[in-house]
């Protein structure tokens, strides 16, 4: 799909993957997230082969796919508890606590809906359950696939703030979005398909 691609995501950087539909934004994102091993070339995390240090890498990056992994029969708090469970083990240095989950849901404006079945929530509210993860653990790398989908104005503003905060605390963000991101000086856009001529 693409060749001659050299991407470097350093601390405090926001990388926006852009390009027309079908240009391979999600494919590249999944490669970077380590979910797709079907590639030729090298993929490194902190200088080491990404798939050799995958377990370590997995804890340090947060991946939000365009599928939200929300079970409609469960409540937001139950869904979030499952989504956060890798960070809730006592093996990690600072395990996420139950209270953190409730607080995060409050932040994404779902206070009062914690115990309502997701079936009864709107598409945007369901997206917020997944996005609440951003407010919980400060992982160094976020990989977000179209996170602005189905969000209202307040939701978009909240997400922009989270991304700014992540960049400000020296974390990195890789994002695919058609949304124009503002107020982030370290923003770098990678045009797939058209401009760079990366498409075969």
């Amino acid at each position: 799909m693409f060749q001659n691609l050299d991407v470097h995501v350093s601390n405090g950087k926001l990388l926006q993957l852009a390009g027309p539909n079908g240009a391979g934004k999600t494919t590249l994102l999944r490669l970077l997230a380590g979910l797709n091993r079907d590639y030729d070339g090298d993929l490194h995390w902190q200088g080491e082969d990404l798939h050799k240090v995958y377990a370590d890498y997995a804890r340090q990056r947060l991946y939000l796919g365009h599928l939200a992994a929300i079970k409609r029969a469960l409540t937001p708090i139950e869904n979030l508890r499952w989504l956060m469970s890798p960070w809730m083990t006592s093996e990690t240095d600072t395990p996420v606590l139950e209270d953190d989950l409730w607080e995060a849901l409050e932040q994404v404006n779902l206070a009062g809906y914690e115990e309502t079945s997701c079936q009864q929530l709107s598409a945007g509210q369901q997206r917020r359950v997944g996005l609440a993860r951003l407010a919980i653990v400060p992982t160094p790398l976020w990989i977000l696939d179209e996170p602005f989908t189905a969000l209202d104005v307040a939701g978009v503003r909240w997400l922009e703030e989270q991304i700014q905060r992540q960049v400000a605390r020296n974390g990195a963000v890789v994002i695919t979005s058609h949304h124009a991101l503002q107020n982030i000086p370290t923003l770098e856009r990678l045009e797939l398909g058209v401009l760079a001529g990366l498409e075969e």
Partner: protein
Amino acid sequence: MSLVTATVKRDLLLAARNPGEWLNPLMFFLMVAALFPLAVDPDPKFLSKIAGGVIWVAALLATLLSLDALYKSDVEDGSLEQWLASGESLYVLALGKALVHWLSSGLPLTLMSPLLGLMMALPDEAFPALLLSLGVGTPVLSLLGAVGAALTAGVRSGGLLLSLLILPLYIPVLIFAASAVYHAGIGMSYNGQIGFLGAMLALSACLTPFASAAALKLNLSR
């Protein structure tokens, strides 16, 4: 709480919220035993000979019915992607999913089987063998079936494919289990058959999660 425990808990919670999904195969199981005596000879002498075999065939088919959904929703809603993203071993997760499947299908089938034994005029001596063979045999069905479910999770209407893939693997379980119940019924020892089922359980508990994990990775790399 690790992802595996969280997944087992979440799936049991989901089963509790949607009881239809796991009650349907149980109803099927019960109906086979209810209809069989009506359609063939209701004579207890005749029924008692075939009871073990009929109950086991019904249990096997009921298990097949419930397998299709095992991974399907996890693939569709992105849960599987999050599993892979978590970096936790897919082997352990596949084992956890097979456990959930057994708890919601094999275990209730086993607990319900004495009732079917009564309906089918199963000889009194055969009841322990029926319970034991189902208790040891149905986990094998869940473990083997989970591999097929993992392979066909991304396929639209993969139910038929799943049956074709898994049914041949179920045959040895069926033969040994039905034979155990039959031999118990005529007053013979059935230790050998149960021992063989136990060996199959140990082997499939160790090996099938590898196959499931590989199949799940295949599903995601597209």
